[in-house]
């Protein structure tokens, strides 16, 4: 019994530094990319399309779009799709997500980012940031996981407590509840808000 307890503490002690490493990794990974994005946003000399292209490059390496696509359909719908449907959906969704993200970024100009310490949640990490302007404060929570040795990836973003993935999920759910995958594709093919 004593031995068992000793082993357990030993494991915990072994694990702890590993977590600490994870947190530090996430911290620098995210800060680095967000600062680059802020830099691009604040650069008034940059052409909008060039800027957007550069931002897309950054978010593509930070976000795990494939997983995000999968999560928005969830286990209710995703496993039932054919490989071709999965590919088509991912393509359409990622396009939609990028466009929406860029559109929202365009609203920000004079904000500065305040970072909080990353937190461990199960085997994933969340990091809270605040976009602070003169008289406003917006909280953003980045949720990351480590799909491979290659490193951390963002799988969801929460703005003021509203999850990007869940928002899309509820929207897609509603379409699929009465309609088919085809309807959802048709909807995603249309420009946003139409």
């Amino acid at each position: 019994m004593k031995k068992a307890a000793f082993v357990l503490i030993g494991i915990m002690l072994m694990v702890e530094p590993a977590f600490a490493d994870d947190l530090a990794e996430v911290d620098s990974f995210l800060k680095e990319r967000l600062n680059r994005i802020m830099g691009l946003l604040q650069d008034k000399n940059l052409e909008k399309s060039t800027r957007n292209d550069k931002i897309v490059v950054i978010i593509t390496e930070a976000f795990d779009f494939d997983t995000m696509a999968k999560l928005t359909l969830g286990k209710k719908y995703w496993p039932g799709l054919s490989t071709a449907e999965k590919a088509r959906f991912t393509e359409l969704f990622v396009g939609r997500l990028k466009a929406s993200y860029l559109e929202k970024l365009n609203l920000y100009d004079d904000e500065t980012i305040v970072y909080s310490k990353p937190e461990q949640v199960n085997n994933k990490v969340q990091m809270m940031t605040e976009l602070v302007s003169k008289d406003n404060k917006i909280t953003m929570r980045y949720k990351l996981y480590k799909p491979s040795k290659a490193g951390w990836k963002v799988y969801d973003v929460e703005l003021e407590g509203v999850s990007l993935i869940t928002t899309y999920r509820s929207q897609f759910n509603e379409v699929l509840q009465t309609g088919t995958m085809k309807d959802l594709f048709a909807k995603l093919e249309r420009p946003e808000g139409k």
Partner: protein
Amino acid sequence: MKSPHSIVERLFDRIVLSHPGIVLLVILVFIAFMGYQATNFQLDASADTLILEDDQDLRNTRDVVARYGEQDFVVVTYTPKGDIFSPETLARIEELQSDLAALDGVDSVLSMLDVPLLESPPIPIKELSKNIITLRSTKADLSLAKVEFQNSPIYQNLLISPDLKTTALQVIFPVNTEGRALLERRTALREKEREGLLNATEQEEYEKVRSGFRAHSEKMKGVRHHNIAEIRKVMDRYRNDGDLFLGGVSMIADDLITFIKKDLKLFGMGVLFFLIITLKVIFGRTRWILIPLLCCFFSTLAMAGFLGLFGWEVTVISSNFVSLQLIITMAITIHLIVRYRELDEALPEANHRELILKTVSSMFKPCLYAALTTIAGFASLVLSNILPVINFGWMMIAGISVSLILTFLIFPVVLIFFDKAVSDASSKPSFPLTSIFANFTATKGRLIMVISGLAFLFSFVGISQLIVENSFIDYFKQSTEIYQGMKLIDQNLGGTTPLDVIINFDDPNAQSQPDAATSSPVTKSGSSEFDDFDEFEEEENSDKYWFTEDKMALIQKINAYLNDMPETGKVLSLGTMLQVAEKLNDGKPLDNFELAVLYEKLPRDIVSLVLTPYVSIEHNQARFAIRVRDSEPTLKRDAFLKKIYHDLTNSLELKPENVQITGMMVLYNNMLQSLFDSQIKTLGVTVAALIFMFLILFRSLKFSLIAITPNLLSIGIVLGMMGWLGIPLDMMTITIAAISVGIAVDDTIHYIHRFKHEFPKDRNYIQTMRRCHESIGYAMYYTSITIVIGFSILTLSNFIPSIYFGLLTGLAMVIALIAAMTLLPQLIILIKPLGPEGRIQGPGHSE
């Protein structure tokens, strides 16, 4: 004194006529008691009295009210002389608002000064959650505010008229929690009672709750009446600065009561005065004025006592009962007077008491028959499913019985105090209308048939054009303040009658169940990849994710559809709020994400203002609170409601089970539609009941069919005339058809009864007809003329239903009289229901 003829007559003679003083005393004690009970007599014009009790829509409406909240309020409109947005006027509005708010029994007052300004100056949507200013704030830009109010999808047509000349202040009364709790309990117990599931304690509770609710409603009516009077006093102080009107459902109910009471008092007096004059002209002598009036007064008072005793509330529908009671009592009394004078002339040697006994005994049977038949007619109202109409039926059944009994007691015991005196010189009218009718019937039989045929045709075509519409505004003359105020609110401040459209969204979890089951093998293998992310499974049900683009687009589509209908005034829904948000979002619709963020960030008091009344996330439904322009001439209520339902389920592709239309307008419409059904059903039953009664009374199918014909003509012409004149069938006018039956039956029965009595004398149809016209004809003629003249004064009322009542009752009387004096005898002469002329038959046939 000669020995009376039957046991009943002997008893009547020995008990009543021998002790008139005692009988009169008993009657007076009874009347005094009933008069005391009459103080409990209640007049109810509340919305609850105008709706069907068994209505599923009533339950739905109450559910919606419980879910989204309800406010009892009135609206004060203010049209200042100057510019509304000038600082002076705004200050004046503020003063008016605080004066109103300071009144006892007023919970709060909402005006244009209280609502958030979003564009004066514009606020970015990011900052919507704070820095909200109003017109009271010094930061407000008045010229921008003017534009905002003019264009705001929320404020325009609600707080301010489109021409920016009139503003509305909403005076909100405290929520009547006690009343609502009592009502809920009463409804629950009533439903249980209907199913026969009440036990003894619940039965006791039901009685208690019922009387408690009634007492509470009565108290609230008084309170509201007082509130409204106080509000009007405040308004009076501002009349120098502009025009002010009062509107709102509470006010309509209160003003209706006031109008009805005023009409009862003023025109009750007027009718009385006209009756006295007419009686004086016809009969000349004081006793023939005094006795009918005594009978009428006592009967009405006794009836009012019954109403108080049984707690039957007089509603707009039954407010005519006083008039009816007068008509019926007057008819019985005039028949007695005419009969007395007839006998007096025929039997000059008979003494006063003998004459009275003979009068009473010879008239009791036809009067009883007429009363029973009329009761059968009114009993048909009990078959309708409109509670006030049912109550009206019961009231009339009781009223006719009271009139019959009291008149047959009061007439003899009062008359016996007078001496016999000399015969009335003028027992025949100076204008011999009855002989004209007799001659006409004798000579122009065929013409009568042709005219009657045409009249039936006229009625038929008229009835086919009858409409069922009910606009409160049409109840009042255009010169009245209530009309002008309602018109203003209707046309410029969003309409009057509330209507709710409720849209249910499909339950996101409902349909997925079978899906999940069938795809479970796939899920099993693929689910491991989701195991790490089960955080999303629960989160999805959170309120903020309810606001999806699809839902919002649908809500806005429905909102636009409802708003575009010419009949709708103000439409408030989440769609209206989204319009505002869109405007702040540079004209772009908010996406799911923005909606969810906005929902999270909005202060809770704003949520309760812009979301709670229009969305129930818990029930997955949205509400569209509509006010309908009641005065819109093109408004056809039933068609309008059907169109909304049709368009929502077809053009907008909603599932029928997901659409619910409720609210006051639906309830009114249901009642109106059931009036149509009721009218047809009750008239059908009435006619069947009449034929049945005639069969019992006359024991002859021929006579029964003859007797029903003038009745049909009378109802037909009254309803047909309403159709031709475009007078809609509403809860007030529906009773006129029933009344005309009552009147026509009276004439028919008296005439046939007399005819059967007179015929054996010479077995000549024409001669019998002449004798009847010269005897019972007078009574019918006098009754009609007295009542037509008496009720003609109602046409001076400001209350349109009273005018219709006066005119149509007069019409019904005239038609009934003409039909009974021409068509009825012509049919008898034609069909000869009493056998061939000339040959004297056995005694069995005579009276």
